[in-house]
Structures are given as structure tokens and as C-alpha cells.
């Protein structure tokens, strides 16, 4: 029942969780990727927070690069047409701004602080994503 993908998933998840906790200890900040990206791209204000976000995200890209150099390039495939990435991206950018977080910020950091807001946000975006794919699949087969 347990597949290699599941074990790799749990191990990769553990690294992500460790990274989020170390970021809190080091910077006193939330390792929510939508928020870190936003601090670089949405009216960026020079300062300590911007540099923390910048070097953390550069490290993230570097880690993803180094691991792929060692273990082979990850395959990147999309279940849906790539035209959809534009509206999807806009929704992700607007939604994470309005809702103050994404899978990492609410789903990992927030739940780890036992934040009721993050628990509700996570349940909402996971349920909405599942419903969205269900509707797309249903309309597609109609």
C-alpha cells in the first residue's frame, strides 16, 4: 500500500517542516512562501524583512536546483491546459494576499502554532481546490 512516492513525500515534508521551524527561530518570521514572495514583489520596502525573504527564497531555488543536479531533473507536468495558468495565478496571488497565506503559511506554520484562523483557511482552500477539480472533471466529461 505504501509507495515510494509516499515515503519521499513524508521525508520531503519533514524537511519543509524543519525549514519552517528554523525560519521562525532565525528570523522570527513565518515561512509562508506567498508572504515572502509578496514582500519582494508587492511594493517592496527595503529592510531586514525583505532581505530575509530574498535569501530564503534564493536558498529555496538553490536547494531545488542542487537536488535536481544530483538526482535528476524533476518532471513538471500539468493536468490542465497551460492557458489556465494565467487566471489560476491571478487567483492564487489575489487569494493569498487577501487570505494572508498559502499552503506553507497557513497549512504548516499556522497549524503548527495551533492558529484557528490557519486551520479554517487550510480546510477552506483544500476543500475548494478539491471541489474545483471535481467541477472541472464533471464538466469535462459532460
Amino acid at each position, binding site marked *: 500500500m505504501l509507495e515510494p512516492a509516499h515515503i519521499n*513525500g513524508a521525508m*520531503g*515534508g519533514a524537511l519543509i517542516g524543519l525549514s519552517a521551524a528554523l525560519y521562525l527561530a532565525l528570523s522570527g518570521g513565518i515561512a509562508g512562501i506567498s508572504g515572502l514572495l509578496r514582500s519582494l514583489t508587492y511594493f517592496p520596502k527595503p529592510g531586514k524583512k525583505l532581505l530575509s525573504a530574498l535569501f530564503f527564497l534564493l536558498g529555496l531555488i538553490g536547494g531545488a536546483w542542487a537536488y535536481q543536479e544530483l538526482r535528476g531533473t524533476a518532471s513538471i507536468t500539468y493536468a*490542465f491546459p497551460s492557458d489556465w*495558468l494565467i487566471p489560476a*495565478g491571478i487567483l492564487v496571488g489575489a487569494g493569498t494576499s487577501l487570505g494572508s497565506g498559502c499552503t506553507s503559511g497557513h497549512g*504548516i506554520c499556522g497549524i503548527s*502554532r495551533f492558529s484557528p484562523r490557519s486551520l479554517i483557511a487550510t480546510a477552506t482552500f483544500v476543500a475548494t481546490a478539491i471541489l474545483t477539480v471535481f467541477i472541472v472533471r464533471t464538466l469535462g466529461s459532460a
Partner: protein
Amino acid sequence: MKTLASILRHLLIGGLFGVGLVLSDMINPARVTGFHDVTGAWDPTLLFVMGGALLVSIPLHQLILKRPRHKIPETIKQSRKLRPDRQLIVGAILFGIGWGLSGVCPGPAIAQLANPQSETFVFLLSVIGGQYLSPILAGIFK
């Protein structure tokens, strides 16, 4: 963020996150959509990732938040007491729709920059566009 050591620590901690995203295959949108697609060929990998992350992240977050030595901003400590509001829910719904349509959330999108395809840039630029649209939505959903 004054010293080289601090920059290196941020790069390293970000690196763990990036390795985690590739190892767990969350960098691959089709893998994420596989989790959203509950009535199709459901892929539970994302659950293992969240499980692995929280298993590490919850005890560490609790430990870090209890230690006065770490300067955790009051806003983070107090955020647990904030109540969910309309912006949180609407934001989570919009993010959920975008996540469902693409299979991409901000962390994996940035990790993709290690070996980017044109889709990576299309998505990330759309996310940034969505960030700049968010004040309009924030005005509507006060």
C-alpha cells in the same frame, strides 16, 4: 541580516525547503492535482507531505514559541487569538480555485525557477498581478 553568516543561514534554511519540495514531488503540478482529484485516480502523496511536515513542525514551533530567548514578534504570538474574518475565507476560496485549476501554489512555483519552463514565468507573473489586484478585493470584502 548584517552578516555573511546570517545570509548563509537563510540560504541554507531556504535550501531545505527547496529540497523538500523536489523530494516530495510537490514541485510537480500533476502530482498535486492528483491529490485534488478525489473522484479520479486519487494520489494521497500530499497528505504524507503535510503529515511529515507537521510531525516535525508542530513540536518545534511549540518549543520555539515557548522560549523567551527567541524574539518572536507579538503579532505572531497574538495571531492565534484573532478570529477568522470574511477576507480570510474569501481569500482561501480564491486561492483554492487557483490551486485547483493549476496544481501550483507559491512554494512549488518558486522551486520551479531552478529549471524553469515558460509556464513557470506565466504563473508567477500572474501571481504578482493578482497581488496588485488584492486591494480592490479587500475593499469589497471588508
